């Protein structure tokens, strides 16, 4: 596990910045809720009558005046997007950075098999995502207690779980792509996260683009659906997990035979 530890140390700064940023924004939003609630009469009507914009963010189905509805939209945008960015960035650079920073010659001339390197790097990515989510989850629960709202355990657990799965899927896909790249990983990581997010917005607005829901992981983490159904869409989650497994398999197949430059 030498490499896992090494990767965690290497990624420490990025991990702290992203976790602090996401945690801080989420806590701030929760703290805004009591004020929002007072002025909510009318606002909810406003939010639910903005046409496509309303549909895009699922606000036609969420009640912004209730804490669950508010948390669904806010959490969706902060943890959903922020977490997706972090997971994609972290995974997209994981294998390619050795060649980009020219450290591959150092690392890969030690008696450690490529398979082991891939495995330990993958564990490091997943560990960082797990710990980031745990910290954000705890911060979020604490702040909800602090403002005196009742914690809707089932809804909140489900939402956080959905975002966690989403991050794991994106990370697995980006990890696979990372094996093929030699540089420019940040752009690819962010690009994929943004593309998936936009695909979900498009699918929310347009009926004909509904099939996109089976491509983007943001579909099964759509808070409006999660809150109204009380569960995740199993079919979409399974498709997502298959995409993730494909990404990881691609990483192993490519990187064990890759010419390092």
């Amino acid at each position: 596990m030498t490499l896992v530890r090494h990767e965690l140390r290497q990624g420490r700064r990025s991990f702290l910045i992203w976790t602090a940023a996401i945690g801080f924004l989420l806590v701030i939003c929760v703290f805004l809720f009591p004020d929002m609630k007072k002025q909510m009469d009318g606002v909810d009507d406003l939010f639910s009558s903005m046409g496509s914009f309303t549909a895009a963010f699922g606000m036609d189905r969420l009640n912004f005046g209730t804490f669950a509805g508010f948390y669904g939209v806010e959490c969706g945008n902060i943890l959903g997007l922020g977490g997706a960015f972090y997971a994609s960035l972290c995974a997209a650079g994981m294998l390619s950075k050795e060649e980009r920073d020219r450290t591959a010659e150092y690392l890969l001339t030690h008696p450690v098999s490529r398979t082991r390197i891939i495995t330990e790097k993958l564990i490091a990515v997943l560990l960082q995502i797990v710990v980031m989510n745990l910290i954000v989850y705890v911060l979020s629960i604490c702040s909800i207690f602090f403002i005196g709202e009742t914690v809707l355990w089932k809804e909140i657990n489900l939402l956080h779980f959905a975002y966690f799965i989403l991050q794991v899927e994106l990370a697995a896909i980006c990890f696979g792509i990372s094996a093929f790249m030699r540089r420019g990983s940040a752009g690819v990581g962010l690009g994929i996260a943004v593309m998936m997010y936009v695909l979900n917005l498009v699918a929310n607005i347009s009926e004909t683009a509904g099939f996109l829901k089976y491509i983007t992981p943001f579909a099964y983490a759509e808070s409006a659906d999660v809150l109204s159904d009380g569960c995740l869409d199993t079919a979409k989650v399974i498709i997502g997990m298959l995409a993730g497994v494909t990404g990881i398999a691609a990483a192993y197949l490519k990187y064990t035979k890759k010419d390092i430059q």
Partner: protein
Amino acid sequence: MDAIRIQKLTKYYGKARGITDLDLTVEKGEFFGFIGPNGAGKSTTVRTLLGLVMPSGGSAQIFGNDIVKDRNAILRITGYLPSEALFYPGMKVKEVLRLSARLRKTDCAGEAEELCERLQLDSSRKISELSFGNRKKTAIVCALQHRPKLLILDEPTSGLDPLMQREFFSILQKRNREGVTIFLSSHVLSEIQSNCGRAAIIREGRIVACDSVDMLSHTSAKRITVQGSVALDGLDGIFDRRETDGVVSFLYSGDMDSLLRTLAQGRISDLSISEPSLEEIFMHYYEKDGERI
């Protein structure tokens, strides 16, 4: 047992040539030189041996271990010094050395400390603050600290000052005397001439000569330098002729007697006849399609 045995090793990067049908054998305990200019295939050979790139054809073994199948066994007994040594910038020198030891599952702190001292490398400094030469020293310690049986060095002295180069080679010679096989890839010929027993010359991905350094340097041709006026036109076997300020210098492989008779007819104020340097022979391999002098 041979330390390195390469048979018909070929590597193409897509359509670009790396090395073609390379055959080479290095015996255990040898200090072997591998000579060639940039782009000739030196680094490709080294990188293929270390499993960084996969061969397109042929095979190679290091101490009997196949370079594709037994990569880990090879890397366990090998120390590699890359030509361009880069490390994780946020780490300290001692952290890089410790990570290297951990990845090898050994503790070689004592050896590392001794090497750092000899090379005057402060191991508490951060990699990002190091000069090129100090990064090179870090790479040297990484390659040597676990006491490998085989050392593969790719242009090891670039960035080291002459004093450090001397120190480095004295460490290498000591290791070599203790039985370590050294494979030195370089384009600095004097380095090869003063350290290696045998050497191979690589040109456009192929070995064009492989012999003892003495044999490579020793040829029938002599370097003749004449100061004065003499008519050399009737003489056969002259090549690489250079003329500056009344001094004529050329390589001569013709009949010695006719040379002396020709010279006797001129007015000569100074004359020297010497063995050509390895450098001149090397240049010859590159200018004359690899044909022996």
